[in-house]
Structures are given as C-alpha cells and as structure tokens.
C-alpha cells in the first residue's frame, strides 16, 4: 500500500467515526441541556399545581391532565377502529381484493399526511361539519359542539395515529401461525370464534404495542390539536367532552412564545419539556420491551 492510499483509508475511517460522533453528541447535548436545566424545578409542586401569574410561576398539572385525557380518548377511538380495519384486511377479505388494496393505499397515504393538515381537517370536518350538525339538530343551533373541544382534538389525533395501529395489528395477526386457524376451523369454530378465541389472544401484545406507539406519538404531536381543542391557559380542568383543555406539547409552545416574562418562564419551559420527553420515552420504551418479548416468545413457540 502506498503512503497516499494508507492516508486515505485512515482519514475515511475517521470521517465515518466523526459522523457517528456528531449524532451522539447532538442527542447528548439536547438531552443533557434539558435534563440539567429542567431538573431543578421539577418536583411534586411543579407536577400538581396550575400555572400562576400568567405562566411565569406555578406548575403544569392542567397540561399533564389534559394530555392524559387526550390520549385516553384518542385510544378509545383509535384502537377499535384500527384493530377492526386490520382484522378485516387480514382475516376476512380475500388477499387480492381491490377493497383491501384501496384501504392499504389510503392508510399509507394517511401516514404521509403532515400533522398540520390533520389539524385543519379536524376543524373543517369535526368542528364545522359534525359539531355544528350536532348543535343544529340537538340544541337548536346553540353553540355546544361546534367549537374546539377535547373530543374533536382526540378524534383528530386518532386519525393521525390510525396507520400506526393498523400496521402494528396486521403485523401481529401475520405472526399468528396459520395452523392455529386451521385447527380452530377443523374443530367447528366459526370465523368469528376463531378470531376471538385464537387469533386475537395471540395477537394482543402486538396490538398493545401499536396502541402504545400511537399514544406516545399522540402525546408528542401539537399540530393536530392546535385548532381543534387545545387552549392557551384555562382556569378549570376539562370536565365535559365539549370543553377545551391544556396539553403538554402545546404548553411548551405557549411558554416559549407567549410569556409576558421570558426569563421567569425559562425554567418552567425546561422542566415542561423534560416531563414531555420522559413521558414519551417511557411509552416508547414500554412498547419496545413488549415487542421484543413477543418476538422472543414467537421464536420459542415455533
């Protein structure tokens, strides 16, 4: 090897290593910065109190409460819809059915739609069409549902996370060996009995993984709820589906851009981001753990 070739080889190795290092460093700086600045203020007080004096003091309890309520409502909507879609596509429809092809195309496209477009869709469809429709029919035009509300925000978020749930459920259904289906049929099970007693129990942890990933995505997205239900600052917690709510991601945006006193808000901002990160990391971690356990069990079961 010539001196020149050796030099080129070494320098290229260093460059690739450097590229990796940059990524690690960026992540470390972001997380470290947030952790160091955010941990000071973090405490029971911060987690259980409402914002005070504008947003310059107090805690973030309403935002945590709102986030939890949002993802619970979203889950209630997205899991049945997503699981039913996947079960239909994988268990009922013929493999070459044009309907399945269409649904799959729609889901793939849904996964590629920018989050802000979901937000606008939520306003146009849920609030102006469905909400106003309900108000006109049930309340004689009096305003109840034709305005931003936690219900509409949750449903919008459910649409955003629908592809995640459908794809995860289909993957889980695919992992159930065909022989289990055959045996169930051979014992005289109907298709529904086969699905309910054999396929779904086998697929449940995979479906759960999809649900958790959806929740962690839903907890982190702001754009879909921006116009459909999230509020800047509320004196009360939401008690009805037609109420507005505060949410962690949106609260970060509010703290960063709308504070009357930037310096006073800064520590609160750091801590809020930290809470949001810990929440979504914990959810993702749980999903990964469950999934690796399923994979291990599937390998052993074969």
């Amino acid at each position, binding site marked *: 090897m010539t001196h020149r070739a050796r030099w080129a080889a070494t320098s290229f190795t260093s460059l690739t290593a450097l590229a990796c290092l940059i990524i690690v460093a960026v992540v470390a700086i972001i997380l470290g910065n947030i952790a160091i600045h955010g941990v000071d203020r973090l405490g029971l007080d911060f987690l259980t109190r409402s914002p005070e004096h504008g947003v310059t003091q107090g805690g973030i309890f309403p935002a945590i409460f709102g986030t939890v309520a949002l993802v619970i409502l979203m889950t209630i909507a997205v899991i049945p819809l997503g699981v039913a879609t996947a079960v239909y596509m994988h268990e009922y429809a*013929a*493999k070459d059915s044009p309907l399945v092809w269409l649904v799959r195309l729609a889901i793939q496209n849904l996964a590629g739609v920018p989050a802000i477009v979901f937000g606008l869709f939520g306003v146009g469809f849920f609030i102006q069409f469905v909400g106003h429709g309900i108000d006109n029919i049930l309340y004689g035009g009096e305003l109840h549902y034709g305005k931003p509300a936690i219900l509409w925000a949750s449903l919008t978020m459910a649409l955003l996370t629908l592809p995640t749930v459908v794809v995860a459920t289909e993957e889980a259904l695919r992992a159930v*060996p065909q*022989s*289990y289906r*055959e*045996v*169930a*049929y*051979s*014992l*005289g*099970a*109907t298709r529904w*009995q086969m699905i309910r*007693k*054999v396929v779904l129990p*086998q697929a449940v942890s995979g479906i759960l993984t999809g649900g958790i990933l959806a929740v962690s995505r839903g907890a982190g997205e702001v754009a879909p709820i921006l116009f459909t239900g999230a509020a800047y600052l509320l004196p009360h917690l939401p008690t009805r589906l037609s109420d507005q709510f505060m949410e962690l991601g949106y609260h970060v945006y509010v703290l960063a851009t709308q504070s009357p006193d930037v310096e006073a808000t800064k520590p609160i901002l750091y801590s809020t981001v930290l809470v949001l990160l810990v929440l979504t990391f914990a959810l993702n971690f749980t999903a990964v753990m469950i999934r690796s356990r399923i994979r291990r069990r599937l390998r052993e*079961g074969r």
Partner: protein
Amino acid sequence: MPTAAKIETKDLHLWYRTFHALKGIHLAIPSRGITAIIGPSGCGKSTLLRTFNRMNDLIPGARVGGDVLLDGASIYRDALSLTQLRKRVGMVFQRPNPFPLSVYENVAYGPKIHGMNDLHGRVRRSLEQTGLWSELGDRWHVSALSLPPEQQQRLCISRLLAVEPEVLLMDEPCSALDPIATARIEELMIALKSTYTIVIVTHNMQQAARVSDYAAYMLLGELVEFAETDKVFTQPADSRTEEYISGRFG
C-alpha cells in the same frame, strides 16, 4: 363390502384452479374401523381427506364437483352447517399443533365454542381416552408446547375427542414422530376404532398394513382400488396397486 357406509363419495372431482386433483372418486367408507388412504406423494390423498370435512373450502380457487355423503346426506348441500359438520368430522394434522395454551385449555377449546356442558368432566374423559390423564397427573395446567411431540399429538386427539366427533380424519398423524411414538399413536387408533370411524392418510405402507381394516389406493387423482386391507396387500386386483405395494415405485 360390509354394512352401511359412513362416508360415501359420488363421482367426486376437485380442481385447484386449473389443476384437476381428484378425478371422479367413488368410495364408500364403512362405519367404524380404520380406513387407510395410501398412494405416492401428490396423488390427492390429503385432498380427498379434506373434502370430508370441507377444509378445502379454505383454499382459494378450490372447486368441488360430485358429492360427499355423511350418513347418506350430502355435506355439500346449501343448508349444511359447516360448524356442525366439522364437529362431527374432526381432523388430526400432520404436525402436532396444540394451541399455545395449557393442556386443559386446549382440550376445553372445542366444547367451549360449541357451548357444551360439563366442561371439566369432558376434558378429563378426553384426556383419559388418549392416556394423557394418568401420564400427566395434575400437570394439565402446564403449557401444551412444553410436552414432547408424541404427547402433543395425543393432546390434539384429545382436543378433537372432546367435541364428540363421529369421524376422525388423520392426515399423516405420525410423520413428524419417531418409531416408538408412532407405535403409541397406532395403539391409540386401534383402541378408538370401535367407537369412531377413522380415516387415515399415510405414505407409510407398513403403518397402513398394521392398523387399517380397509385400504384405498390412489394414483394421480384417481381411486385405483378399495378393499379390505388384507386383500389389497396380498391379492391386489389392479396391477398398479401391486407395483406400488411391492415397492416398484412411489
């Protein structure tokens, strides 16, 4: 041939899309006893077996012509309940395929979906019939997948017996087992044949000779010969049967 047929096929044809897999089978399987269907790979013996409980319905592109009668009534008639048919005509598969549940839950599965009473007694009796009850003792709550293959296969038979079938279809039930395990399954089949009509598909000639009372020889989708097993093996009526059982091909 003896008494009334349990299963009778009348000019039975089956196509997988364009492939003609069964070509006009006329066969009358007697009630009780063991009937073996033998023949080289791809001759259509498993396909024939799966027309008896209509498992071929699950295969896209499969089309049936002619008819199959169970106790004289067509199982391809429109009003037939598939679930009732499969409860009466059960199946044991080539590879032991218990559900990844406990031994008890495996056996209880069928009775549960059919809403049968006395679940516990039924599970116990079914396990007793295959000898698993005494072998496992109180281990009926262990995972079925932790059992050795032979016990798994007997568990699958117990799971089937629990729904009180009349016919047991066995699709090469021993091909995944060693000789000692095979012998135990064969003993079990002989013990069960006084109560059930058993139809077994096998490529193992010795096995057919050992366990079966009647034997059907199939070749390229056609039924070549059907008679008492002794007769098929000692004085085959068709020269093709003779060639096969004397090991000249297959």
